[in-house]
């Protein structure tokens, strides 16, 4: 649906920090590439780079985005190819510079150059609504908004929806991350429906809280590469929806919450979850 030829540029953002943007960027990148698509994941958190570590590519970074902006190397040559997943590559951020060292125009230029070589450019946005956010959103054809189902995170997400629309971009689609089924089941966490009703956006996916994300991140191995991980499955579904497939939302079921959760899940289906508009 992008007007320009080449791949689609998708920015992963949030209002509040720490809600899972980098995790989502890495895993959506992996999952799209697993579908046979060519993906360049761009670390837009310039000055606080961490996408390389989450993806386990930190030892292979030679060039970063600042080299590209300064003309030292072509965008495509600065990409680090992920040897585990064909078609997946990373453009790292510079750890020593400041986000103000790159302008929105330069960010657009870099991403426009990349889109000629891939099907998707995925930009991991920094937290906040300052320059780094504007840089990350400027090149986007589409924005994906990540939030957790908490009051503060959803409030900040609402602010970001306004800013994204003010930037002339389509209304973002939502990834609701770190849903805890056992809390939803006993009414102690807002439901997917609550959050969608409040934010009035469409849902791209729901990702459960998953302890294996910690282990996966420790190893530099995105969960989408780990078989049997629920969060990984959620990211594969998100990638399928991005690619235009109509995949139902994962049911949010109580799994490993001890006897009570297990018994009660025998008696009824899990509460509504990874379902809804798309």
């Amino acid at each position, binding site marked *: 649906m992008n007007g320009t030829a080449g791949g689609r540029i998708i920015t992963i953002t949030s209002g509040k920090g720490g809600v899972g943007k980098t995790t989502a960027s890495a895993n959506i990148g992996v999952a799209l590439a697993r579908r046979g698509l060519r993906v360049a994941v761009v670390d837009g958190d310039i000055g606080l780079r961490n996408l390389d570590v989450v993806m386990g590519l930190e030892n292979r970074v030679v060039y970063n985005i600042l080299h590209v902006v300064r003309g030292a190397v072509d965008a495509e040559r600065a990409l680090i190819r992920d040897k585990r997943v064909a078609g997946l590559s990373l453009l790292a951020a510079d750890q020593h510079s400041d986000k103000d060292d790159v302008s929105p125009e330069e960010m657009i230029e870099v991403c426009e150059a990349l889109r000629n070589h891939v099907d998707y450019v995925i930009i991991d946005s920094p937290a906040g609504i300052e320059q780094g956010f504007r840089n990350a959103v400027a090149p986007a054809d589409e924005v994906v908004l990540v939030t957790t189902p908490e*009051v503060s995170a959803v*409030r900040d997400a609402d602010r970001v929806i306004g800013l994204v629309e003010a930037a002339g971009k389509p209304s973002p689609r939502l990834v609701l991350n770190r849903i805890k089924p056992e809390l939803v*089941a006993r*009414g*102690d*966490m*807002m439901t997917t429906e609550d959050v969608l009703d409040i934010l009035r956006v469409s849902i791209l996916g729901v990702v459960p809280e998953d302890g294996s994300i910690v282990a996966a991140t420790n190893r530099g191995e995105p969960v989408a590469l780990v078989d049997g991980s629920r969060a990984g499955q959620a990211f594969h579904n998100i990638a399928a929806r991005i690619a235009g497939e109509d995949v139902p939302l994962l049911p949010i079921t109580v799994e490993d919450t001890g006897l009570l959760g297990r018994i009660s899940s025998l008696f009824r289906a899990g509460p509504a979850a990874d379902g809804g508009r798309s």
Partner: protein
Amino acid sequence: MSFLQRLFGGSRSPAASGEVARDRLKLVLEYDRAKLTPAQLDQIRDDIIEAISRHVTLGNGQVEVKLEAGGRLVAEIPLGRAASDKQ
């Protein structure tokens, strides 16, 4: 809340905290979206009282200014009997 959870004491307070979160969030977002604070709303109420009093006599009830869903500011202003009827 399933039967079993009730049975095993899974439920406690009448309003589960998820609902409380949802209601607080709805309210705070009404103010955020209108770029207003509760304190500003109080100020607006005082200004309305002042403006209206210049034209008509206010009644005894409370002047209420509320922010409603969808970004509507609603004022309820109890009027007294018109000044001309008073004498």
